[in-house]
């Protein structure tokens, strides 16, 4: 069953590098990451690649295969012909440390900028009561394995380094939506989503949804509803008036899902 495949792999560090050609054995049932590992073991012992679970659950081995963001462990070799040259490069949006490994600290920085889950003071651990239907929306977003391919593919930052400070990226805008839809979260996240985390930059091209290995409907289920919540707040005349006259009404309803 085995054959020799042609691979072109990005090699380099410190901002320098080039594609290097390899001819490498491929066996039945293998994925791209298996082939990268074979290169390490037989031809390039210092070839750098991130990986952990090799089962599509940890989101470590994000690379670009023939220009498309993919998990190396979930891309089967059988999806290519035996004659095709397979090009593997690091994610483009983040700085390369070496070979296929990027500096993804942007994502951890953004994670820290999103205010954490904020439950009401009067509910003790063990007292939480939620209906399945009310947790399912946020549960979908919590399937995220943080492969950061959505942030990698998003054109707001893929080709615009200058947008990075003001834009959390689909991953963390989805995190805001997840918390906003959490039945017990009492923080008001609508204004900050727009003003501090750059929700307005998203023009719903759905690239993030397309690359999501967990098939989370990031755009339809997280970003668009979040945009609607922001708009409802902004253009609802009663809310506007209220916010002028009284202190801004936050969602202080401790149980049951919030409006939206």
């Amino acid at each position, binding site marked *: 069953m085995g054959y020799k495949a042609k691979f072109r792999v990005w090699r380099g560090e410190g901002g320098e590098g080039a594609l290097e050609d390899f001819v490498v054995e491929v066996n039945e049932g293998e994925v791209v990451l298996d082939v990268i590992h074979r290169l390490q073991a037989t031809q390039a012992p210092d070839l750098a690649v991130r990986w952990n679970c090799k*089962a599509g659950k*940890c989101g470590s081995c994000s690379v670009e295969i023939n220009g498309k963001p993919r998990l190396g462990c979930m891309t089967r070799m059988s999806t290519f012909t035996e004659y095709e040259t397979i090009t593997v490069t690091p994610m483009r949006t983040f700085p390369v440390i070496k070979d296929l490994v990027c500096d993804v600290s942007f994502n951890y920085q953004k994670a820290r900028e999103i205010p954490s889950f904020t439950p009401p003071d009067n509910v003790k651990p063990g007292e939480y009561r939620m209906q399945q239907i009310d*947790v399912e929306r946020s549960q979908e977003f919590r399937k995220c394995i943080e492969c950061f391919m959505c942030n990698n593919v998003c054109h707001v930052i893929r080709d615009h380094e200058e947008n990075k400070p003001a834009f959390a990226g689909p991953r963390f805008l989805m995190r805001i939506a997840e918390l906003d839809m959490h039945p017990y979260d009492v923080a008001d996240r609508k204004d900050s989503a727009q003003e501090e985390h750059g929700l307005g930059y998203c023009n719903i091209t759905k690239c993030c949804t397309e690359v999501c290995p967990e098939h989370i409907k990031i755009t339809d289920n997280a970003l668009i509803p979040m945009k609607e919540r922001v708009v409802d707040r902004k253009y609802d005349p009663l809310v506007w008036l209220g916010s002028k006259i009284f202190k801004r009404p936050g969602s202080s309803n401790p149980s049951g899902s919030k409006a939206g």
Partner: protein
Amino acid sequence: MDIERHEYDVVVIGAGGAGLRAAIEARQQGKRTAIVCKSLFGKAHTVMAEGGAAAAMGNVNSDDNWMVHFRDTMRGGKFLNNPRMAELHAKESPDRVWELEAWGALFDRTKDGRISQRNFGGHEYPRLAHVGDRTGLELIRTLQQRVVALQQEDERLHGDAEAYIKVFAECTITTLLKQGPARDAGISGAFGYWRETGRLICFDAPAVVLATGGIGKSYVVTSNSWEYTGDGHALALLAGASLINMEFIQFHPTGMVWPPSVRGILVTESVRGDGGVLRNSEGKRFMFDYIPEVFKDKYATTEEEADRWYNDQANNRRPPELLPRDEVARAINSEVKAGRGSPHGGVFLDVSSRLPAAEIIKRLPSMHHQFKELADVDITAEPMEVGPTCHYIMGGVEVEADTGASSVPGLFAAGEVSGGMHGSNRLGGNSLSDLLVFGRRAGAGAAAYVDRLAARPVTPDDVMRAAEIEAVAPLSRAGGENPYEVHHELQRTMNELVGIIRKAEEVKEALEVVTKLKERAAATGAPGGRIYNPGWHLAIDLRNMLLVSDCVARAALIREESRGGHTRDDFPGMSAEWRRKLLVCALTADGEVSVEEKEQPPMRDDLFRLFDRAELSKYVTADELADYDALVKES
């Protein structure tokens, strides 16, 4: 050479469930805490856990309580568990799960809005809090986000998010530092390197918590990721601590067997908990033939009764597919050996004929996805092929149950790297709860230890120098042995000779190979530079894998009985005498592994009495049974 230095109160090595819970606790108790992990933050092996966290909350069946959970755990471990650990675990796991919910976790719900609980092998009642079949991801993400929440709090209070808790990701610890060479000299820090830059790094700290997980990468067929190289086990040994129960390795009964590149990847036990059945090539549900004597009264003997159990657990016994993992793994092994296996050397696990497709996708989304993407198998339409895979080591650092303290002052351990809690076999679902319960306890133990210290310990210069030389040695042997080849040979050896079924001659052969591989490992070289050089990293990890494999093989040779995760072909029976003995591995002054027998701590009277006499008589000696009788008479 330029070495980065940091000062902390507590250094936690490992950022899986146990490590993060320990770090959160240490930080909550006001200690400056470092989390050091080999991967990126949030990628640790805990994400792989599927089924759930066992906690006797009684949400689904109100008859459940800590005593039932305690009994199940001891029974699953074949009574070799440290009873105090099993007790603390059963009592505290509900609080640990509820706490996660208050930190933002979203578990699946019951109809009345509580945390839903599912059935699992060896658990008498539905007990596992879960989120579909991705519970580990929920657990690690929640803890990760809790760390971030604490950092946000520190940012507000001190203007520095990393003032009290900082994550050092992609950083490997190679040596624990001590105040001196004596076995009982206290911990003074930890030494290692940044994977990204190759820069050396030293943590000066009076307390270290090991939370490094397991050792699966010593085996070819394993559900474990590359990180599982037994680092904590080896670091503890080298620092003078001891390991117990190293002969007990859990082979999960259901790993994928095809295609070859995914061999070993886990198929969650929830498939069986939710109705999936095991069949051989003749279509027979063979588990009915493998119910061992000690479990005869608890498992259904006919398919009809087994099937009724899913809907009526009060009046039926559970299906034998839900026997503890060691039993199921051995049964599958026997079927394959008898020529009744599936085409790729496993057996069939079928849920497609048992549940509607939509229900399968809802309950087992990751499994559906995994088989579709990796094996081109639609589990809603056809059976899966599965076989045993190296999954978990019950053995680990010998610790004090209440604090996680090892015999080395300042060294603590929690989670898979610690030993005792699970005895000879761990029940599914008891790992996630173990991480939370003992992670918290080890973090608190370390914090209390630091409070008791009169002065901060100091690492002698020669200790630092030795750590530095060892860490960079493979880089200077550029023409040396290929570390990948040494690793592959170790994996094959352990898989074939110290695997699921063991024989004295084979284990002896493995020990000879390990000795030779140790010499080869010492000569491995890593071409290339210091920046993210996986060859160098593997050359260093090999030392740990070989030390741990040595312990596993030696203990496996000495224990002449079969119990839980240790099956000897030449000693097939379980022995009540051996139940009283633990095998303790340590390093001698010249670096050799020594194994000594030690008496298992007895069960406290009130715990002993939780069991009935008929059950105890299957496990304990006549003397112990007489003690039990006296106890009962007294009351």
